[in-house]
């Protein structure tokens, strides 16, 4: 019999370990920026073809 593992204490201190990003906040900002870029590209696409 084994019990479930203990709480993940590292949850908040873990780094993204993604090249170019030192913090999770930076990664979230990148994803938000990507969303804005996609929105801008879709707006251009609509203007080009509608």
């Amino acid at each position, binding site marked *: 019999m084994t019990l479930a593992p203990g709480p993940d204490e590292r949850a908040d201190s873990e780094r993204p370990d993604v090249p170019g990003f030192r913090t999770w906040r930076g990664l979230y900002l990148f*994803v938000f920026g990507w*969303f804005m870029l996609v929105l801008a590209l879709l707006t251009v696409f609509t203007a080009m073809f509608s």
Partner: protein
Amino acid sequence: MNVADWIVLLGTLVGIAAYGAWRTRHIRSLNTYLRGSTSTGWGTIGLSVMATQASAITFLSIPGQGFESGIGFVQNYFGLPLALIIVCAVFLPMYRRLNVYTAYEFLGQRFDEKTRLLGAGLFLLQRGLAAGVTIYAPAIIMSTVLGWRLDLVIVFTGLLVIVYTVTGGSEAVALTHKWQMTMISAGMVTALVVLLLRLPGGLGFTGAAHVAGALGKLQAVDFSLDPSRRYTVWTGVFGGLFLSLSYFGTDQSQVQRYIGGASIREGRLGLMFNAVLKIPMQFVILLSGALLFVFYQFAPHPVFFNQAEWRRHAQDGKFAALEARHASALAQSQSAIRSWLEARASDDAARETSARAAMVAANDRADAIRAEARAAIAAADPRAKTKDSDYVFITFILTELPHGTIGLLVAVMFAAALSSKAAELAALGTTTTIDLWRHFHPLTAADERRNVRVARRFTGMWGLVAVAFALLAGFAENLIEAINILGSIFYGVLLGLFLVAFFVRHVGGSAVFFAAVAAEALVIVMYFSLNIGYLWYNIIGCAACVAFSVAMQAILPPRARADEVRAR
């Protein structure tokens, strides 16, 4: 379908299911069974989250949506990346820190046991009732088009998913998701390439996009503030944020996909993978539908794409006349499109404007005849299914793709059905085991092997319930919409519970519990007394739950508040 198609279809579907069951057959650990392997990386988590959301209807209906109404539906996904950022920053760290198996366990730790049972109960009621629909909805389309027996399709897909989900639990679900998503991506890219190659000579992608755009199919974004418009940037960002937050943050079928893994980093990166790829992926699927529309401007196609339904009613001359008129309107539309393309190349603005108006008018005439065809079917049988856009893409697959790839694309549809069903069954089994069975049998919680056996039995039970419901759904199809409505009635209050848990820290268990019950009662009363779109009940239920919780906390007797603070 020929032998090659059957080999590809059965080889991929059964092969992936057998691989999942074989690799996970020795699982004895409850943690691995319910949360997956502790070495799962972000790529597998990301694909698993994507596969859970992508049902067969995604690949059958969304190209049809692009064909029929254009690509504006992509705006529905605009809130998703923002919701996933919130889930990564707030929900996931809390679930990991408290080491929960289900999202509803978190409610128990934050509030109390009755609130946990309420959250789990709402999820089980909503997902349990909808369990058959994820099997039935694609099965009815595939069996209609391919001429297979509906009950056999339901039983085959149901038993296949039960076998590997019961065997390996969450670990098998994640493993099979990875390969199912790989196959789905390969199949969809193949279909898109064939579609581009089959476009009329000289048209190419750019020409086809200009034709689709001129005929109103490529308006991807609409910044209008008109509330009567169904898809705008604003409804997508705000409504989509709300819906995605409730789905990804509180629905156990998604929570279970990302709370496991080697570390919180893997879960976060898996979610960010979806935040980055989801909108482009949906855009490509919708664009395929719009290009399919252009393809069918130049290729003969039926006036009504659900040919089985059409043949059932097309007994008299009225239907033959509609077919003849449609063929003639299609020829005129083709001619008008070619004239417009020539006018566009001539750089004569006046000629181009006039040719464009003629093309739009010709297309409108063809559309009007398709609408007449739908009305004729409805007149012949008021219970007949008159929405044929779900049959457009599968018709293209069966008539235009080479053999072998037909089997692959049919396998894509079934793989999507299996992937969403597997995640749903694992979530239902896990919630029943952890939040109900262990709650009422606390002494057995330490016997891990028994817990795994019980989780397997509950997962299998929910699988059989889903198959039974899917078999019955054919006799009561209007139940399906009722179940979707029921989902909206419960989803909002469930999200409200979690938003209070995360963001309104001074509210305690009794306040939120009675507030949720009152909010649910309000939503049900409003549903029976008002006539508004049922999606609004998501927002109303959530807002009512949060507002009632704050109010209830303020009016609770001081003793009850003090007890709750001590308990926390």
